[in-house]
């Protein structure tokens, strides 16, 4: 058998996993990997900061449902991707991050650009490997992809000392791997699904809460079947936004801190919830004790550790959400159950939805977020992929941008990472080049990773950045207005920089849109062009995100716009 280097075996192993693209930035400790990347068929996308590489891999992974790959060197290169790894972990996104490490003999000697990235990332990875011989690499890669993409997906780190990349050995590539302590899926318990079905059927005021797990397992059709057979209204978590078409008559939209008023209202009035692939985060449910009061909870999740973590469950169904829902659909069909929605609850839901949609006060500014995002929905094709940054614009997107096509909306919902949306959009574009990709952004977040404009332009991965620009760290400003008696500190970004010029400086297209009409035209221009476009929209810095469930309170205490 011919001897090959660890780095070469890494490239072969990645190609065997079907990797066609990787995002990264080279450095001293991963040069052998890059030298092999030079010779391989894998496309390398050079980033301007490793954090963006990890977000691109994350965006690629969420959209393609295959682990996105990113490369970073040792030390600061590795620590720069920590935020990206934590973001992927919080949102269960498949990712394989590959870092260079100082040579094995130097580990522990505080070498130049040495960081204990295995130790640093321990609580935020699904698993981490540090192969100490080139012969281990193929097995490690195979295990990494298997772990990252199965069960509840997540990020896996492979940290490879430089000498392990360089050393040559006779290397065997396994066709399969076994991990005895890892059981990503269990078959759902049929009797539990039967009990869940009975509970749902006997409820007077049932509701479905769809979480991110529905999107990850692609259980859209099954979810819709159950909702339509039983005429049950569907609310989602923010991560689950887009798991159910938001223009569907049964859709009430996301619940939570900035949930739709009708969703929060109906959630609090329900007597039984079918929660699918949701982890009952505090941002979704408010106070845990109040949420579960007088509520029967059916919890379907692939991760057994989510059962009972935040809420007390009446019926737990552990297993893939798509499989569990499919079994439930079959049971309903066998029982020939088809409801018409004429119940008192059905009427109450319909009336509540109509009431809030007609009577909630809209911010009076001509460029109120609701007007901007409704215009965006009008002009953006339904199959387009939308990402967001983190802050007010993100919550406005949750409130005012309806997701029609399931699984086309992605956001950093768990960790809440500002700067995620733009690089993630570039990763999404790499996964689906034929679909328009747009990042609903705020300038505070965009500032954090705007240098990815170079990547979007030079790598021909054009995405649109819709910048809701109030030159303020708006969400913090809103909290300072609301909870700190308007003592504004650390939030004013003072009209700097000019984002049209920033875009142009990178060779992208910059458009300033100052009316709703101009916004529509700008998006259409961007959709027609082949270059990254930043649409700078000066919005009102005084606009708050409403409704608002203040932290530490329950959904019942929702504050409405007045």
């Amino acid at each position, binding site marked *: 058998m011919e001897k090959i280097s660890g780095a070469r075996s890494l490239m072969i192993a990645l190609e065997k996993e079907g990797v066609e693209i990787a995002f990264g930035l080279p450095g001293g400790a991963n040069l052998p990997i890059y030298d092999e990347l030079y010779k391989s068929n894998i496309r390398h996308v050079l980033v301007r900061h490793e954090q963006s590489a990890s977000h691109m891999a994350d965006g690629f992974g969420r959209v393609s449902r295959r682990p996105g790959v990113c490369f970073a060197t040792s030390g600061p290169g590795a620590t720069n991707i920590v935020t990206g790894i934590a973001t992927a972990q919080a949102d269960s996104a498949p990712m394989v991050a590959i870092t260079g490490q100082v040579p094995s003999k130097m580990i522990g000697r505080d070498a130049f650009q040495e960081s204990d990235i295995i*130790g640093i990332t*321990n*609580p935020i990875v699904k698993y981490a490997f540090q192969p100490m011989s080139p012969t281990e690499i193929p097995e490690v890669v195979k295990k990494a992809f298997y772990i990252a993409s199965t069960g509840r997906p997540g990020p896996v780190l492979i940290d490879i000392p430089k000498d392990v990349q360089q050393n040559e050995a006779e290397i065997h590539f396994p066709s399969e791997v076994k991990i005895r302590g890892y059981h990503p899926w269990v078959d759902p318990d049929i009797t539990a699904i039967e009990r869940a079905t009975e509970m749902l059927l006997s409820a007077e005021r049932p509701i479905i809460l769809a979480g991110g797990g529905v999107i990850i397992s692609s259980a859209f059709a099954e979810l819709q079947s159950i909702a339509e057979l039983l005429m049950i209204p569907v609310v989602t978590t923010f991560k689950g936004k887009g798991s159910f078409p938001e223009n569907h008559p049964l859709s009430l939209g996301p619940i939570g801190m900035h949930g739709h008023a009708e969703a929060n209202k109906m959630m609090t009035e329900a007597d039984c919830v079918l929660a699918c692939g949701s982890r009952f985060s505090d941002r979704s449910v408010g106070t845990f004790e109040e949420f579960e009061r007088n509520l029967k909870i059916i919890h379907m999740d692939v*991760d057994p*550790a989510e059962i009972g*973590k935040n809420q007390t469950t009446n019926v737990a169904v552990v297993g893939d959400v798509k499989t569990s829902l499919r079994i439930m659909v079959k049971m309903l069909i066998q029982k020939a159950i088809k409801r018409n929605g004429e119940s008192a609850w059905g009427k109450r839901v319909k009336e509540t939805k109509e009431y809030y949609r007609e009577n909630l006060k809209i911010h009076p500014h001509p460029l109120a977020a609701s007007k901007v995002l409704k215009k965006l929905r009008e002009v953006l094709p339904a199959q387009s992929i939308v990402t967001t940054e983190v802050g007010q614009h993100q919550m406005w997107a949750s409130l005012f941008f309806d997701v029609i096509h399931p699984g086309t909306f992605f956001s950093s919902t768990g960790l809440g990472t500002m700067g995620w949306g733009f690089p993630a959009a570039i990763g999404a574009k790499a996964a689906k080049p034929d679909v328009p990709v747009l990042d609903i952004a705020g300038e505070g977040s965009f500032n954090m990773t705007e240098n990815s404009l170079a990547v979007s332009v030079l790598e021909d991965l054009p995405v649109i950045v819709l910048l809701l620009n109030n030159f303020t760290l708006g969400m913090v400003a809103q909290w300072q207005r609301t909870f700190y008696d308007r003592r504004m500190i650390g939030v004013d970004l003072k009209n700097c920089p000019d984002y049209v010029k920033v875009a142009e400086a990178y060779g992208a297209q910059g458009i300033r849109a100052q009316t709703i009409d101009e916004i529509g035209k700008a998006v259409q221009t961007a959709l027609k062009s082949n270059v990254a476009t930043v649409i700078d929209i000066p919005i009102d810095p005084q606009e708050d995100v409403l409704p608002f469930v203040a932290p530490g309170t329950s959904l019942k205490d929702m504050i409405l716009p007045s």
Partner: protein
Amino acid sequence: MWSIISVLVENKPGVLFKITNLFRSRNYNIDSISVGITENPEVSRMTITTEADEKQLSQIVKQLDKLIDTLEVKVLEEKKSIYRELVMMKLKVSKPTDIKEITDLANAFKCDVHDVRKSSIIIEITATPDRINALEDLVKGYGILEMARTGICALARGHANED
């Protein structure tokens, strides 16, 4: 509620760190932890004792189970398991009669006595925490100069298929 959790894990570097870091990051409590190899050299057993209510204990078990390097997680019932801890106490010897008294106490508790000197003596006990605490109370008066405890080591009684 004091509980004993018995965890079989892959016997490889970093696993102890993952387990203890899980307890730290999720704000669980470790009362004691003991680790050793099992009959299978690829597998180690960790015995962890913790103070947790029922809900938290269930979460601890699930989160431990979720770790890829854990192979089996069991909560041991006190009545259905054998659990012991080894403790060494170095006691102060102030007057010659102390040695006789301490040795008598040690015999009563089935302790081994080591390193008898003019000014100190080491006693070693392997027992349940209750018995160890009782002994500690009795010898406190002499002055405990140093103490080392291994943490609980435990096995379930009988075997899996036996009721």
